[in-house]
């Protein structure tokens, strides 16, 4: 075992002698402290290693040859070892960041820096309460002093505020210690713990003072103005030090004191932590200054840690578990927050919008991305697992308020961090950065460290399974080979995914799972071809793309809730990254991730109320005999509806679908939305025992679906932007699927799935064809195109097939989906819903005609006269989709029968539904009907070919005429712009029904956003910048908490 005394002695000796060493050479002293910090960190790791192999080792060391209550004891257990290792490592990284400062500032700064770390180490190690006061003061005073490395006015002012606040809190702490000593007669925490509880009010006061002293050092909202000013103005190296090392050590002190608190006190402080988390994030929402934003975020994260430690302890979890969970949050925050502060120092940009400077430096951008994403709790970072567990525990113990607070705070966090990331990734880039190695080094180490810690944590985490790693591995591997040509990467990706899909994904799945696997993974693989159209390396697509597809497969393959959620979050993240690749996709991507996160958090809450699943046994199989309550079903349902873009929560959808790159939009629309369908289906399976078609809930779901279909279609009619049109069209189609699912009947589900499959084909097809059009014309506004049928016949044919399929005109497969949806609805007596569905599908004709007419027909534009057909890579997927559509149109049985079988596993096929050859016969007591897709196809071919032959016979030699060979107002027009009837094509329709699509939802969400931002701004007003006011805050806060505690 390592004697912790040696650790402290080493720090002290170095600190005392550094002045002398510095006389020899400045660099000697700097490298000496590097060595000391690394050795200290190594001692931590060594101790950890020792303890892992020898868990029963005594870990307590006394001083002065006396044992505990008499002397001061240090404890160097597992937790302490982890902290010592990490804190010193970060001390080292921070020191290397400050290398230049040290060169200028001299030995004092170096000694001060070392003493900060000494204080932190001592605080972690000591088990004596007064001794911890001493180390706390060492830590604080050293921090006060080191603020002065940057002697500008602001940091001096912030320093004074900090010192005053620190002085007050340590005075409270000190007086609390001594008052408590009066009752306990000991200063040793362990001895204290073994005492029987003391119940007098005076003791409670003492405890309270002690606790509040430490607590205020943890910067709780709203008594944290001083800390924010400090984060904003201090040198970023120092700010990083404070937010990581300093806070971590004090937090650990808080943790050590926690067992001493009365439950009431702990409850109050825990609540205060949660408040701090939520409000810190709320105020950060409107913050434009990067360092101050990080300050808010940092206080929020500390609040979160305080909260989770307290809450989990209050719920009676074993300490080992509490610590493991908190460690996940802590490590993420440590790496990411200090990294972000360092990054702030490297970019030297305070305004968030100026962070676009990172665009020129993809390495730094990636590092920034890692930090931001980790902070938000996306997988595979440790905070993801921590949050997962916390929410699960809250759910199990029904701590709803806590859960809600945690989730709201997290959502706010997502908003501002993602906005920031958006600025960095998508803003206007102006200049280059100066990047000294000493500052880059810690950044790279912490990003790499965070990534590798996460990777190993994910590997080791129970209930994960190797499958769940694939998306991450794919991301990393394709990230490493991202410089290769895009064609090669495409082939590799297709090969890898196909092999994986065939040998790993499909075999264990039941029919329903295989079906979705084919839709999700198969549908995506086909569309990989489209990405291969890019020239050169086209960096940035394939890591996210492959991660997305693997994650999609994993959603189907999940056997535990965690696996499902992990895959879901990875999918969301990958989709976000893909959307962000779009040229103007900053806002769209932000909307996407915010709504997705909202959904994900609902899902998280829902999962926490759901019974545990059996590991190693697919959820989709378990769903058959498991049941969940209505509340989790509701939460999960809403979560999936968000992903599908149901009306009301569709706000993100048109933006994301239209601003993403065209290939991405295609995948988003045709594939990704089906993940939502899959989820919703699972939920319905889970509640199928006690919910029937006529339940109010299912009726409501049906109406949601119907209105989604209706409003989606109606809004699509009024778009000028082809991609927006397609986006709304997707929304509309998904509405049908929701209606079908809501029926909870065999036929209903078959129709929903049939539609899902169809939608994949035709929407993928149209998107691909339109991608080709956008590529060649360089615009998305339909009225700027026209007459492209002659230039891009293949695209035209694809779109033609697509719109026939979408509209449901026989003989293509689209009619099948209409037939299914109507019959299943009518069979259940949902007449009014049928009518509205019918109306929406009639409206679909409007936008579909507009799409094909304004783009491909009408007058060609002169500036598009050199437009060529699309590259082969975009045509391959189109060909595949056309073949698929034709196949299921001519032989509908190849899809309807398997679908019926797949659904039959969950809802048995009724006897009145039969196949008579290709004739699908429905003989239910309430409805008779039939559909013979095969025969329809032949009849249609017949009635089409006969007149065609006739026409060819009588009119074989037609004369081709030029574009303007029409008579327009008695003249030949020569202005295609005015002759092409395209802009605002359905003006009359807008006059009649436009009032229905006033942007109410937009107004609502804008209002919500504005409300939050002004709330945030109002709250931020309490930070007046006056040091005295901050002190007043501290005192009033103390009094407030005291009154809450209600000591009698």
């Amino acid at each position, binding site marked *: 075992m390592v004697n912790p005394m040696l650790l402290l002695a080493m720090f002290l*000796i170095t600190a*005392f002698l550094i002045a002398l060493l510095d006389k020899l050479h400045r660099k000697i002293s700097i490298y000496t402290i590097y060595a000391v910090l690394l050795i200290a960190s190594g001692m931590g790791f060594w101790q950890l290693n020792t303890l892992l192999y020898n868990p029963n080792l005594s870990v307590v060391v006394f*001083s002065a*040859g006396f044992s505990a209550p008499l002397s001061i004891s240090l404890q160097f257990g597992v937790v302490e070892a982890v902290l010592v290792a990490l804190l010193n490592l970060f001390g080292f990284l921070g020191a290397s960041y400050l290398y230049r400062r040290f060169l200028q500032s001299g030995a004092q700064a170096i000694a001060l820096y070392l003493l900060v770390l000494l204080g932190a180490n001592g605080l972690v190690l000591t088990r004596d309460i007064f*001794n911890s006061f001493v180390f706390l003061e060492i830590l604080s*005073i050293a921090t006060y002093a080191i603020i002065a490395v940057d002697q500008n006015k602001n940091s001096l002012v912030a320093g004074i505020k900090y010192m005053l606040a620190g002085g007050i809190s340590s005075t409270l702490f000190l007086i609390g210690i001594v008052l408590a000593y009066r009752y306990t007669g000991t200063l040793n925490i362990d001895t204290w713990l073994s005492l029987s509880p003391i119940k007098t009010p005076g003791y409670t006061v003492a405890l309270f003072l002690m606790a509040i002293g430490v607590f205020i050092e943890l910067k709780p909202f709203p008594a944290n103005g001083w800390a924010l000013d400090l984060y904003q103005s201090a040198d970023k190296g120092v700010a990083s030090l404070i937010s990581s090392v300093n806070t971590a050590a004090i937090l650990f002190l808080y943790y050590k004191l926690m067992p001493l608190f009365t439950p009431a006190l702990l409850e109050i402080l825990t609540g205060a932590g949660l408040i701090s988390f939520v409000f810190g994030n709320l105020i950060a929402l409107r913050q434009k200054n990067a360092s101050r934003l990080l300050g808010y975020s940092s206080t929020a994260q500390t609040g979160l840690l305080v909260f989770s430690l307290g809450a989990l302890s209050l719920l009676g979890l074993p300490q080992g578990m509490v610590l493991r969970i908190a460690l996940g949050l802590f490590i993420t925050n440590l790496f990411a927050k200090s990294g972000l502060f360092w990054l702030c120092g490297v970019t030297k940009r305070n305004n968030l919008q100026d962070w676009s400077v990172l665009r020129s430096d993809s390495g730094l951008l990636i590092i920034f991305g890692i930090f931001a994403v980790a902070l938000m709790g996306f997988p595979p970072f440790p905070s993801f697992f921590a949050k997962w567990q916390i929410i699960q525990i809250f759910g199990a113990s029904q701590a709803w308020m806590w859960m809600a607070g945690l989730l709201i705070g997290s959502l706010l966090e997502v908003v501002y961090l993602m906005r920031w990331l958006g600025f960095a990734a998508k803003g206007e880039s102006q200049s280059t950065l100066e990047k000294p190695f000493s500052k880059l080094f810690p950044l790279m180490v912490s990003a790499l460290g965070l990534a590798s810690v996460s990777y190993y944590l994910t590997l080791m985490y129970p209930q994960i399974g190797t499958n769940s790693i694939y998306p991450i591995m794919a991301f990393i591997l394709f990230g490493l080979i991202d410089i290769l040509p895009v064609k090669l990467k495409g082939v590799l990706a297709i090969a890898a995914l196909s092999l994986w899909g065939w040998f790993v994904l499909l075999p264990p799945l039941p029919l329903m799972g295989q079906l979705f696997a084919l839709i999700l993974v198969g549908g995506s693989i086909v569309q990989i071809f489209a990405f291969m159209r890019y020239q050169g390396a086209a960096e940035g697509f394939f890591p996210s793309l492959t991660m997305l597809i693997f994650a999609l497969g994993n959603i189907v393959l999940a056997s535990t809730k965690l696996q499902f959620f992990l895959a879901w979050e990875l999918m969301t993240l990958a989709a976000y990254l893909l959307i962000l690749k779009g040229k103007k996709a900053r806002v769209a991507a932000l909307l996407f991730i915010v709504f997705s996160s909202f959904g994900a958090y609902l899902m998280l809450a829902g999962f926490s109320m759901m019974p545990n699943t059996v590991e190693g046994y697919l959820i989709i199989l378990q769903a058959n005999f498991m049941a969940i309550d209505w509340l989790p079903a509701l939460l999960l349902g809403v979560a999936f509806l968000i992903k599908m873009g149901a009306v009301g929560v569709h706000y993100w959808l048109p933006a994301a679908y239209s601003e993403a790159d065209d290939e991405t939009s295609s995948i988003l629309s045709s594939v990704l939305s089906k993940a939502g369908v899959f989820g919703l289906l699972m939920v319905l399976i889970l509640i199928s025992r006690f919910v029937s078609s006529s339940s109010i809930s299912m009726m409501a779901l049906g109406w949601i679906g119907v209105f989604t279909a209706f409003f989606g279609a109606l809004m699509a009619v009024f778009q000028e932007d082809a991609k927006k049109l397609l986006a709304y069209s997707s929304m509309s189609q998904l509405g049908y699927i929701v209606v079908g699912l809501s029926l909870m009947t065999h036929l209903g589900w078959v129709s929903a799935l049939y539609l899902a499959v169809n939608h994949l084909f035709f929407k993928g097809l149209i998107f691909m064809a339109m991608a080709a059009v956008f590529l060649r014309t360089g615009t998305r506004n339909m009225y700027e195109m026209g007459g492209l049928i002659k230039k891009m016949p293949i695209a035209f044919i694809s779109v033609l097939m697509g719109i026939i399929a979408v509209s449901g005109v026989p003989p293509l497969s689209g009619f099948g989906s209409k037939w299914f949806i109507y019959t299943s609805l009518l069979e259940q007596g949902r007449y009014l819903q049928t009518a509205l569905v019918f109306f929406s599908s009639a409206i679909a004709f409007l936008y579909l005609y507009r799409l094909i007419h304004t783009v491909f027909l009408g007058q060609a534009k002169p500036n598009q006269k050199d437009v060529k057909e699309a590259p082969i890579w975009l045509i391959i997927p189109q060909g595949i989709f056309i073949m698929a559509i034709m196949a299921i149109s001519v032989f509908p049985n190849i899809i309807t029968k398997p679908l019926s079988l797949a659904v039959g596993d969950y809802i048995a096929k009724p006897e009145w539904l039969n196949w008579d050859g290709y004739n699908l016969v429905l003989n239910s007591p309430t409805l008779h009907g039939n559909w013979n897709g095969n025969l329809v196809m032949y009849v249609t071919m017949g009635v089409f070919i006969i007149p065609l032959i006739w026409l060819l016979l009588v009119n074989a030699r037609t004369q081709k005429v030029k574009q303007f060979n029409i008579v327009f107002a008695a003249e030949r027009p020569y202005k295609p712009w005015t002759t092409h009837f395209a802009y605002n094509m359905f003006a009359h329709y807008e006059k009649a029904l436009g009032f229905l699509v006033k942007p109410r939802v937009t107004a609502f969400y804008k209002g919500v956003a504005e409300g939050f931002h002004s709330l945030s701004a109002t709250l931020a007003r309490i930070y007046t910048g006056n040091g005295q006011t901050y002190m*007043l805050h501290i005192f009033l806060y103390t009094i407030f908490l005291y009154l809450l505690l209600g000591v009698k």
Partner: protein
Amino acid sequence: MIKYLLVFVAIIGIGYIFLPFVMEFSTPTKLNPLATSYVQGSVNELNMPNVVTAIVVTYRGLDTLGEVTVLFLATAGVGFLLKRKHDMVNHRRKCSEILCTGASLLTPLIVLFGVYIFAHGHLSPGGGFQGGVVIASGFLLLVMANISFHFSHNLIHFSESISGFIYVLLGLAGLVLLGANSFLDPRYLPAGKWLDIVSTGAVPIIYSIIGIKGGSELCSVIDSLQHGGTEL
């Protein structure tokens, strides 16, 4: 106005927080067990009459080490903050004859007294810090009197560094000589005779070192405040 009201509320509130404690406070009539064992242990195990010193230097020696560190920190911090590139010219007038003479006369005595205090810290009231402060006050007197007396910066820093270093070494000596739990244990030197100045193990040495350390730190602070900090 609102602000005054809030301050009033804050002060009343803080007073109110202490109320329950004051209400039930009664001066105890006997020592608690920990204090008793300190008193007994100090006399019996350490052979030290001054129980406070026993606690400060031995039992809770780690606190004291921390305390020394805090002093060092303050010095370094003040020096760092008030650091100047060039010494500015002092525009203060010369001291009067009486002050000069008095100060010159008293300073050695004061320093001597300081040494006495920390050398006898284990026997009588007093100790390293007190001694150090007294010594520093002597130098303060010189500074106030504006006698053209220059600290040797190097000397001060050297004594700061080396005394701190020796203190830690003395602590480590316990660790080396007496075992893993004996950091800062002074008992590797003989306990000596009761009330003897060379007794109670290494305590007198430690306290002297603390005295030197404290004195030089405070001198350094005085120097920094007077002349601005120095580039170390």
